[in-house]
């Protein structure tokens, strides 16, 4: 998707002439254009659906009606609204009118226009995070407005070095995309790469940040997300301070942070709000859950199809008695159940919350029990599949949960073909793929490969804050020291 930007520009025809885009706008019923009569004669035009009429009524019209003005400069000096500008460029005028400015011209033919910002903000209020909920910690989540989202970050980061660069992306939507980073911490190379890739996007619409994720990813054919997607401003703040770059898209309640690594997808915000030993144990449980979720059904298939010798005698009795009446081979049994679970998930995701619960009960309890009673699946497998579905929900980032849903199927096929060797082969393939993968040019599989021992302090385990004296090497920060560990970790003798 990212490729050389073609010099195609639909707005080219509009350049130099204000009236051609006015002509296009006049087709819409919400476009108002009229000549004001009275002391001052001028043309006012605006889009009534996105401009605040209050500004017009309270600040502009009284001024215009009260006095006689000869030029736009005079009007500009008298209207009590800030950030007014006079522009001659048709492109500029078009952009601003479409963004809710009120344009005033002395006459229809005039090239110059006075642009008064009057954008009416309508949208959701800042709510609590629903996808990345945490029990402790801040409970604000991004909304669809870029201004509000940047505000949520800025109010947490009181530094003049927090830089925001805006890029317009999408040939039709021309969506505002903001790149945030902290100057002096973030590596300029990463910032440059992100901005360049955003500029290179040539697509007609950017509806959500996930569009951007897919378009600027290093390898868009990979099932693994290469930009971390979050709805928590505190998480973005944390990433920015670590030297990462954040991308916010207007209209999307999710921010992207990059460069990222695979282990970061398994780190929850809670990990930093809890004491480090608890956080470490919970993080390890989560990692175990992910491995279990991916490998449990493939191992079931592998062992029951090819290596029944491996099951100890006592356990064998349990499995045999549960599988005695099942007419299908393990692979078919597993595929049926896995598909059933996926169906439930998809149905649950599409339905409103209240009906979703019903589906959960119908699907989980009724169908599950009935399937076992009817002798279609064994209850051992039902337990395994249900547990692995449960385990896949423990991932703190929603996107990686989807990846985990998907990558299990090649394992199942491998297991059916060559048992444990097949599972191993698929694993080698994924490991190779992950080693090759990069996130904005930085290795994705770090800190495992390239081995970065210092970054292991916050990967599978999380060490206490006084051990986190360095920012992660992964992002190649300009300034890598958080604090001087010699001062903080000075050993004290008894009774000092």
């Amino acid at each position: 998707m990212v490729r050389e930007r073609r010099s195609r520009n639909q707005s080219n025809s509009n350049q130099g002439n204000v009236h051609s885009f006015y002509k296009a706008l006049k087709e819409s019923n919400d476009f108002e254009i009229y000549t004001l009569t009275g002391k001052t004669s001028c043309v006012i035009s605006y889009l009534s659906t996105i401009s605040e009429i209050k500004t017009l009524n309270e600040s502009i019209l009284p001024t215009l009606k009260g006095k006689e003005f000869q030029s736009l400069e005079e009007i500009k000096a008298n209207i009590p609204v800030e950030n007014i500008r006079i522009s001659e460029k048709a492109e500029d005028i078009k952009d601003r009118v479409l963004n809710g400015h009120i344009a005033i011209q002395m006459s229809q033919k005039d090239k110059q226009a006075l642009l008064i910002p009057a954008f009416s903000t309508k949208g959701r209020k800042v709510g609590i995070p629903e996808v990345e909920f945490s029990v402790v910690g801040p409970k604000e989540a991004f909304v669809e407005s870029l201004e509000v989202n940047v505000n949520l970050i800025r109010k947490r980061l009181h530094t003049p070095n927090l830089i925001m660069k805006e890029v317009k992306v999408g040939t039709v939507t021309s969506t505002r995309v903001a790149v945030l980073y902290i100057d002096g911490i973030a590596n300029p190379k990463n910032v440059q790469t992100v901005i360049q890739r955003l500029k290179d996007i040539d697509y007609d619409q950017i509806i959500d940040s996930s569009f951007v994720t897919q378009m600027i990813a290093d390898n868009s054919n990979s099932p693994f997300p290469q930009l971390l997607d979050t709805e928590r401003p505190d998480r973005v703040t944390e990433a920015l301070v670590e030297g990462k770059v954040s991308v916010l898209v207007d209209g999307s309640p999710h921010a992207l942070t990059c460069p990222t690594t695979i282990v970061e997808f398994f780190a929850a915000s809670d990990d930093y709000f809890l004491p480090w030993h608890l956080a470490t144990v919970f993080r390890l449980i989560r990692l175990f859950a992910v491995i279990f979720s991916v490998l449990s059904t493939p191992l079931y298939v592998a062992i029951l199809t090819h290596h029944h010798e491996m099951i100890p005698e006592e356990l064998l009795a349990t499995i045999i008695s549960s599988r005695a009446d099942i007419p299908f081979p393990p692979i078919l049994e597993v595929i049926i159940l896995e598909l059933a679970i996926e169906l439930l998930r998809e149905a649950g995701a599409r339905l409103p919350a209240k009906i979703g619960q019903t589906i959960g009960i119908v699907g989980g309890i009724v169908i599950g029990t009935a399937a076992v009673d009817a002798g279609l699946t064994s209850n051992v497998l039902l337990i395994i599949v249900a547990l692995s579905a449960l385990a896949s929900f423990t991932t703190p980032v929603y996107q990686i949960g989807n990846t985990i849903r998907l990558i299990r199927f090649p394992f199942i096929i491998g297991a059916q073909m060559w048992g444990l060797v097949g599972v191993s082969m698929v694993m080698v393939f994924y490991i190779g793929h992950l080693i090759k993968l990069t996130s904005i040019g930085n290795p994705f599989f770090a800190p495992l490969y390239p081995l970065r021992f210092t970054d292991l302090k916050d990967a599978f385990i999380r060490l206490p804050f006084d051990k986190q004296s360095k920012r992660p090497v992964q992002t190649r920060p300009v300034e890598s020291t958080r604090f001087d560990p010699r001062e903080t970790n000075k050993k004290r003798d008894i009774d000092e």
Partner: protein
Amino acid sequence: MNKITRSQPDANVPENLLVTPLFALFLINAMQVGVGILGFESYIAKDAGYDSWLSILIAGAGIHLLLWMIYQILHDTNGDIVSVHREVFGKYLGGFLSFIFSIYLFLLSLVVFRTFIEVIQVWIFPRLQLWFFTAVTLLLIFYLVHGGFRLITGLCVISVLLTLPLLLLKFFPIQAGVVTNLYPHIDHSILELLKAAKTSVLGFLGIELLFVFYPFIKNPNNSKKWAHYGVFLTICIYMVSALASFIYFSEKQLEQVTWATISLWKIVEFPFIERFEYIGVAIWLYVVIPNICLALWAASRIPKRIFKVKQIYAVACYCVLLYIGSILLNERRELEFLNTFANWIGFYILMYIPVLFLLKKLRGIRRKADE
């Protein structure tokens, strides 16, 4: 000297493809530990019985010496085997020798690949559809080699990290065995010990790959100690495996078992799993795949350097040859022959290192004298 470097610009590797010196440990170790370790005990015990652990130490010391020589040779040239050969033997003879080296590396990958498939056939799937399994595995290998040296290095790291815990399983046979087997017998002559050492050297084959990947290491001088640590780690792994087998098996039994390590996995027992050898062999895939990939990568890198062909064609070509080779070699006897043959060449390649070392030093002295 300058002229030589200029005539072969591709010996220089772009900065972003280099790996840090630390990885020399993993590269060397992953290449040395292959399929050989699964069944080397019976071979060395043939000559020196329970005393053969001494031979492992002797062989290990020899390997450390050879590694030192390799670093000396490469340090002076600051290139790979192709540059060394060209410098010492001239363009044509040097190129020919490098090509033989490439074929040897290919042979090495064939031996590892085919032997591992045999392990799978013997221990897991007696009726394996050879043509299909080989094809899929080779596709996987091709994909990985296609990823380049950095990817293969990463695989080596994962392979070492993943398989080191397997050594803990040696606890089971040690628990069940007779520790007194280890009391020094010293009932074998020095000659027998040396003979066993010669056999165990074959287990340490793999350091010669340094000849090819040396230019890919950042600050290769710093990698020296890591490479030596890598060899040392290999010696430790071999020692532990040998000692565990000696404790568990009697001398007579040792001669009977072909795959001692896998046999030892058989007795591992957990409440939820038995017959650990299935898992062991599956995990061993992580050892074997990087091994084959590295050998294949190195084998295909040499033609690129000599003939200036694209490496991907060389890899594809070798993969096809690997496929044909492993399909044709179907009987245990033929495999045995292939193993012996490759070992024989490997041994002479190792012996060739001191020769090259001396030639290189002589040249250095002569050049100094000329100046």
